[in-house]
């Protein structure tokens, strides 16, 4: 417990609990959900699939974006090549038709992959709100372990059920190794 009386009045980002292993984290998240919290996030050094349920991780938008980008890339690729070869710069190559579909496939394919690939990476970053060098959770001194071997659960102050004292006690009751307030 590291929260002190002096900072009690300033608004905080949330309250964070550290766990030593992934199983405790998953259990804690499940219990927090059962207790009615929903504005919370877990932090771990590697992805944990079992957090999907308690944290409601069901964001599939990125697949949709990638699909759309792929379709756009393919359409653009084939359309561009057709336009170039018929309108902008028609050239007779060995008597073959101007729209030589087989010869357009490689570039169309590459355009598709390029558009979809860049979208999946950039889309992931954008949806995650990255780059974001500053974030309140970094204010927790122990949080450096989150990228190494620590497992954290943070209940955010925007949660309607959030109460500074209650929530902290609740997290402690889940067997957290350390519970700390996250300054804003």
């Amino acid at each position, binding site marked *: 417990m590291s929260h002190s009386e002096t900072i009690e009045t300033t608004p905080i980002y949330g309250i964070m609990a550290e766990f030593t292993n992934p199983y405790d984290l998953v259990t804690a998240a499940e219990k927090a959900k059962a207790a009615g919290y929903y504005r919370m996030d877990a932090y771990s050094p590697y992805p944990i699939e079992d957090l999907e349920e308690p944290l409601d991780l069901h964001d599939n938008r990125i697949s949709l974006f990638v699909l759309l980008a792929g379709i756009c890339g393919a359409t653009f690729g084939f359309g561009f090549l057709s336009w170039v070869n018929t309108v902008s710069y028609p050239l007779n190559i060995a008597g073959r038709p101007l729209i030589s579909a*087989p010869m357009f*496939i490689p570039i169309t394919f590459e355009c598709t992959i390029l558009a979809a690939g860049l979208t999946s990476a950039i889309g992931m970053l954008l949806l995650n709100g990255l780059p974001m060098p500053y974030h309140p959770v970094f204010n927790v001194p122990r949080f450096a372990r989150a990228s190494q071997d620590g497992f954290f659960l943070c209940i955010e102050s925007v949660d309607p059920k959030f109460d500074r004292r209650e929530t902290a006690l609740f997290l402690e009751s889940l067997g957290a190794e350390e519970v700390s307030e996250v300054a804003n």
Partner: protein
Amino acid sequence: MIADNPYTLSPAAVNDLRKHQSTALIVGIVGMLAMVVGFFLTEHGQFMRSYLVGFMFWTGTAMGCLALMMIQYMSGGAWGMMIRRSLEAGSRTIPLMMLLVIPILAGVTVLYPWAFPGADHLKAVHDKRLYLNVPFFVARAILFFGVWCLLMFLLNRWSLEQDRTGDINLARKLEKLSGPGIVIYAFTMTFAVTDWVMSLDPTWFSTVYGLLLCVGQCLSALATIVAVLILMADKPPLAGLITKRHLHDLGKLMLALTMLWAYLSFSQLILIWSGNLPEEISYYINRLNGGWEWVGGILLAFHFGFPFLLLLSQALKKNPKTLRIIACYIIVIRIVDVFWLVEPNFNKAHFQLHWLDLAAPIGIGGLWFSYFFYQLRQRPILPVNAPDLEKALNHGRHH
């Protein structure tokens, strides 16, 4: 066979298989009768061509089973464990196909232009007489089937023995044979399809042809096996053992083979089309003119595009019903592909679908399925003593 083997087919499942077996047998016999009628009613060349379509497709399916079986021994993976026994049953139909090759060998001089009387005046035929002559052709066919039967025999025997003894060395032996076995399969099948299909146009050649047909065979086999597996999936002992993850993996493999087939087909098309050399381009001129271009278009759209899109969806792959429909669909379109490989060599002027082209694949297919179902119920559906079985069954159970 061990009586208390938990994976022995339940009586209900065996019953089902029996029923399917007799249905298939009836279809097969009707088809065969139709073919006999066709033999007397139509020109012999047409009969032989239609027969070749049926023979090539079902031989390919049987051989695809053998190849997939060896691949799964090499690569491991849960998907392989689930279908290993079905693949074994599929491979055990090779002797049946060995019987069915006899009409081809008997009809060489009717079917293959290089064997026509007076074909020697063609320079291409003359120059490759060393290879394309009837005795050598027959000898090769016998050799190929001999090698395949040997592979099939050993793999099946050791697998059964493993059920009985659980000897870990058998797993090693199976793996050790599978490696060279795949190499042998690739080489022999390349020459086999060169003999049986490519030499229908003795002037034409393509180096990727063997690989392309091998991939097609694996796809036919996988589609057949997946369809049959799902047929049995709701009865013990498979019910409850097959997870969505297994189906997903099989669907992914089907997708991969579909894409590989498209990739190789496209490679062959673009290279021959861009090279535009007279001895090569004739192949596509025959197949992209006079109505055949529609068959080509159908293959592009429905052998690649449509199944590709369907198999992209995770939901469709994980659902047994939809996956079975897709598998059956792939079997049909595979037959169209074989038809497209064989027939345009002869009906050069315009597209033509003879009723024998339908009767032959159905007739031979009936016989093949009947024999396949018979073989399938001979053994437990899962290899009980295979080292990775436990892991394979647990595949996808953490969800």
